[in-house]
């Protein structure tokens, strides 16, 4: 037994270095970035950062070709149909753009979704996507109810909640339904303030201010993320405790946020991009789900609001406190 192993090992060992050398080699990879948003794009920045951390150099080993079609899925369809097949190594999409990407079947597509990719129909299962799609989900849907609960913990007097939601976001109806159910459980009235795309954000903010709510819940989404400072400002102006999906909102003045770390998610997406560029099949790469959720509190905002908040019930749970 030992001798046979020994011979096998010598034989295999002498061959191995040649095989190892045959792999590798620098190549310029083309990555298509498709989004229904407009620049500045915080998601692209996160992804770029991840690729840089993995040793990719923009212009040398990787190029990003961005395609934005703000609030216009039809325009995205056109981009997809004109995609130069065989020349693009990877397509990365986020948010609503992913729905359009289903038309692509021969180029690997990476996604970052708030919702459930199985429900969206882009993958067959989380463990085995079985298609040219894979990526990560933020589990926003699962957290929707939890956000209401946390807001209520912090502000027990909460009775009426304004819910600002971009209807252009995939899984948005499910998120709204989960929120609504949670509100019902906690005895809160939910005031739905829908808008569609960045153009309507201003109007939506005006509308939210007018519903006479005790607090504001904003669904995490690229549009609200881009306009987070404006939303936070409005919430403070109307003395509304606000709840968001990512800690970036709190940095911009939001009161509370609960959700997966966005940077971590995009960093992981970049590792998948790396693996696909190295030749792995996306259908074998399981969809990633976050296992750590951040609860961020902005105490400065809490002071600015000047209302009675049960900060102690939240502080010991917070992973990030801004003061």
């Amino acid at each position, binding site marked *: 037994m030992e001798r046979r192993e*020994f011979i096998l090992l010598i034989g295999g060992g002498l061959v191995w270095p040649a095989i*190892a050398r045959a792999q590798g080699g620098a190549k310029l990879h083309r990555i298509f970035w498709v989004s229904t948003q407009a620049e500045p794009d915080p998601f692209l920045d996160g992804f770029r950062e991840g690729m840089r951390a993995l040793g990719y150099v923009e212009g040398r080993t990787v190029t990003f070709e961005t395609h934005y079609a703000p609030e216009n899925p039809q325009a995205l369809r056109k981009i997809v149909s004109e995609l130069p097949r065989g020349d693009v190594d990877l397509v990365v999409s986020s948010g609503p753009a992913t729905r359009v990407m289903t038309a692509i079947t021969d180029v690997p597509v990476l996604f970052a979704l708030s919702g459930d990719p199985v429900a969206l129909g882009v993958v067959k299962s*989380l*463990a085995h996507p079985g298609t040219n799609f894979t990526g990560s989900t933020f589990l926003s849907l699962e957290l929707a109810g*939890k956000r209401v609960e946390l807001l209520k913990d912090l502000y027990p007097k909460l009775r009426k909640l304004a819910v600002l939601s971009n209807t252009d976001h995939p899984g948005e109806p499910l998120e709204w339904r989960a929120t609504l159910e949670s509100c019902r459980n*906690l005895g809160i009235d939910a005031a739905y303030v829908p808008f569609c795309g960045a153009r309507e954000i201003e109007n939506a903010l005006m509308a939210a201010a007018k519903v006479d709510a005790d607090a504001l819940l904003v669904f995490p989404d690229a549009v609200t993320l881009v306009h987070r400072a404006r939303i936070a400002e409005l919430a403070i102006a109307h003395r509304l405790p606000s709840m968001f999906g990512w800690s970036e909102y709190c940095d911009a003045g939001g009161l509370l946020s609960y959700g997966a770390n966005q940077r971590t998610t995009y960093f992981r997406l970049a590792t998948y991009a790396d693996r696909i560029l190295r030749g792995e099949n996306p259908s074998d*790469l*399981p969809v990633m789900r976050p296992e750590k959720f951040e609860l961020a509190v902005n105490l400065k905002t809490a002071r600015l609001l000047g209302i009675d908040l049960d900060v102690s019930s939240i502080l010991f749970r917070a992973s990030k406190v801004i003061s």
Partner: protein
Amino acid sequence: MTDGAAQSSSCTMPPRRSLFCKYFATLFVAAVVPLILGAAIEASFGYRDQRRQISAVLQADARAASDRIEAFTDGIRDQLGWMVQLPWSAGDDAQHKIDALRLLQQVPAIVSVSLLDETGTERVFVSRLLLNRTGRGIDMSTDPAVLGARGNKVWYGPVQYQRDSEPYMRVAVAGSLPAAGVAIAEVNLKLIWDVIAAIRIGETGYAIVVDDSGHLIAHPDISRVLRGRASSSSFGRIKHLVSAASGAAVITGERGSPVVALSVQAADLGWTVIAMQPTSEAFASIRAALWRSSILIGLGVLIALSLAYWRAHRMSGPIKQLEEGVERIRAGQFEHRIKIFSGDEFQQLALRFNEMASELAISQQKSARIERLKQFLPSQVAELVEHSHELLEARRREVAVIFGDLRGFTAFSTRNEPHVIMAVMREYYAAVGAVTTRHEATLIGFDGDGVMLLVNAPIACEQPATQAVRLAIDLQMTVQSLAGRWCDAGHAIGFGVGVAMGPATVGTVGYNGRLDYTAMGAVVNLASRLCNLAKDAQILADPTIAGKVRDSVPLASLGQRNIRGYDQALEVFAVAPADLSLKPPGSAQRGREKEPQDH
């Protein structure tokens, strides 16, 4: 030119190649075989040592991983223990909830915690994803977690994959007091990844964790874990192979390449930590040693080849020279000398060869000289010359001289055509030559129809007189038989012989390379006179001969005769053997015919 070269190479190359092969085989065995043996022995010992060392390293790493995983689960168990220290009392729910939320904050891996009272009813539930619940909830008294914790204080549930992807496990802890109830935590096992990912064995070695049935729990590549049960068959096989082996085992790894693997059991959980390292890295040092050895062996082969070539070349050069020398000698170039200064046996051989060549040259010169002498000397003389020069030197000695002469030859020669004369002469000369050779006498020379023979010079014989007489008889009989045939052809030719013995001067006389051996003295004249006196078929001898052969040969005295050049008359004897007395009838007539010619 090219033909010659090709020919020479074709006849010299085969031996050189075979020499080359022999040298190569010898040097190969001498240099390369010990190298190969050394390398093989070193590699096998190295392999054994390396394997022992790798086993130790893998054991340590697997043990460390197992310890850290146990620390991870022990941490959860201990933290849950805090939850069940105090018995439940009314209105405690809020405090318990805060404790549970703190627990979530403390232990990131815990996704949710249920706190049950002594009846097994849920009182508090907090979660990272779901809404928290407080107050009396569902009855969980029959849940295996509750039963397990009550029986064993601590219960570790089986690994389950949420949505068939993320590994989860439930841990339940019961308080020491039954009234304290049970705490059940749902643990996301993805968090063990940190423990496993931190383990690096060498450059590319790593550790994985599988449960009892081969389901993957932790792997440095988290995506393998997220594939859920689908990959468990492959990891189940690895676990089975590694657990079966004592110590490290070489198995086919998950990527199909061979790995060295070793497993350690995590006691409480029934999990197995498998530490593995690709053999390509684990045995890199041995491989390097083997490469070094291969290079050395290759070098050895090269050296053996070049040495063999050099030696074979050194051998074949002299051999070729010797061969060429032999060829030249064969062609008669005795002056050819071989020049080899290798200081070894070849030089010795060349020396001997040169000696041989010079001796051959001398011998060749001798035989050439003899050949030349044979052309004009009687063959006995010629042979003698070869052996001793001194024999031919002029000296005085006792010799017997025989003269023979044809009778009636003058008349014959005037009457006949030259070709008839020459035919008779050829027969006559041949007969005389044959008799001379037969009796080992020396043929001094022919003089027309006359012939002169010498006995006892230059070669001495025991009884020269007797031998001379016998020769004379033989000569007479031979010529007589010829004469009979000539007579039948109508030529009247007879033959007379004279024999005398006495001291004479013998030696070679000549000029310019023309050398003759001859005898001079009274005895020669005497023999000549006797010959002249002799009638056909008669042999006349002088008194000296007669005195010496009287007992063996019948002689008849012819009385005193006057001989020219002698003052006194000499007694002349006729040799009269029995066979000579029977003379052919015409002999008397032939004798008579001669007489007037000579006198």
